[in-house]
């Protein structure tokens, strides 16, 4: 067992885990943060995506110990971060996914929304092809993607509207 010090969703947490546990396993089975999904568990699907220093990464392929020293954001941290930054309600990405019906079973959603959030932080007005590219590592087997892309575009439209 190693005692890891992880910065997750703004909290500094100490957690004991074996050296061969992935960040995803530490999140789900030590910290009870089950929002990050264990889909394929081998890097194919993107359901386990979390943000590491703002960049989407696959937590099923990151060893827990190697996540020390980084700022990790899981889906559980999205709304609190938005509220801390002075926003109201859920993160606009979550709101848009809800409004556009961008989900069926919901399994891909946490990863999908985190990839979308990372994209919009870096590029507030992406084109359709930039959105496609940014979400291309997140697979969805239900929606056919159309509403997901519409949700991200609707976020962009809202943000641009607010700026005007």
């Amino acid at each position, binding site marked *: 067992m190693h005692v890891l010090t992880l910065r997750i969703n703004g909290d500094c947490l100490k957690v004991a885990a074996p050296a061969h546990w992935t960040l995803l396993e530490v999140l789900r089975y030590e910290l009870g943060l089950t929002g990050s999904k264990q889909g394929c568990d081998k890097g194919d699907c*993107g359901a386990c995506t979390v943000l590491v220093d703002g960049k*989407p990464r696959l937590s099923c392929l990151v060893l827990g110990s*190697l996540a020390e020293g980084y700022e990790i954001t899981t889906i559980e941290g999205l709304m609190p971060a938005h509220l801390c930054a002075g926003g109201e309600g859920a993160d606009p990405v979550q709101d848009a996914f809800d409004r556009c019906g961008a989900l069926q079973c919901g399994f891909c959603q946490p990863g999908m929304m985190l990839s979308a959030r990372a994209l919009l932080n870096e590029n507030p007005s992406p084109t359709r092809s930039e959105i496609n590219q940014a979400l291309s590592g997140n697979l969805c087997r239900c929606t056919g993607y159309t509403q997901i892309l519409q949700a991200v575009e609707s976020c962009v439209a809202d943000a641009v509207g607010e700026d005007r």
Partner: protein
Amino acid sequence: MLRLPAFELAQPETIEAACALFAEHGERAMIVAGGTDLLPNLKHELYDIDVVIALAGIPALDDIEMQGHGLSIGAMTPLARVAASPDVRSHAPALAQAASLVAGPQHRTMGTLGGNVMLDTRCQWINQSHFWRQALGYCLKKDGSVCHVVEGGKKCVAAASNDSAPALMSLGAKLVFTTTDAERSLPIEDLWVSDGIYNKSSKPGEILTRIVVPLSDSRHRGAYGKLRDRGSIDFPLLGCAVRLDLDDEGIISDCDLVMVALQARPTRVKKIAESLNGVRIGTPEFEAAVEEVARRAHKQCKPLDNIPGDMDYRRRMIPVYVRRTLLAAAEGGGPVHHI
């Protein structure tokens, strides 16, 4: 759920410490760079090791430096950075393009160029869970004595599937390997051996520290073409890297064409200089030469039933991708892929 087998994780802070650990544990240890190949393979129980040595805590392995003799890229440089680097894009377009087409965005942020060069070979009968492999019957690459691809085969023919490999080969790159007491520079040509079990000449204890690409001038043209099922995530069903060096008049003075995802080592298409050298790009003569090279590639390259994707289809796509990638390189374009 796919659990990792138990191992000790070492997190050295210097390259010397990493080399010492690797020398101490030898075959019982493996390096983890971005982990996007090592971790799935460990989860599939493809390696019997006790120690994983992480390079992530070692500074100065993730930079791209212009040196007098070439572009020196630290082994830990993420693929996304290789793909976006203005220096790589201008001096080694085929490499930038290949890096941009590896897997999906998360893999390119996590995965490193060093890890891509050192990627294990792939086969549809081996990149599976232990349960699956046990049910089918083990094969030569791990635990078994038969090959499911070549009946009666005594040699593993799992495919080199790293997109950077043909690009680096076409560019004449050199690899710097570091051990406890030495550093050696190896032409990438000499890394590969035709054995799918381990397709490299490097030994346990050797750490790839830098990849050096010779500088090219403004008349260098290069491109990468990649066939895959989905426009994201998938490994190559075929990869094709082209280098064309032009003289002042736009006449080809030297060229290279290397393919990947066929056999255990990346494959150079032979005798293409006979068709292309001395030909001016953009002329009908050039188009005829391109057709000739496409025919040569089709003749020389024979996909096997090692990776997914129908092998007849993959063979038919060889001249298509060779043609398109050569034309893209001549125009200063690329990458060539289907979306």
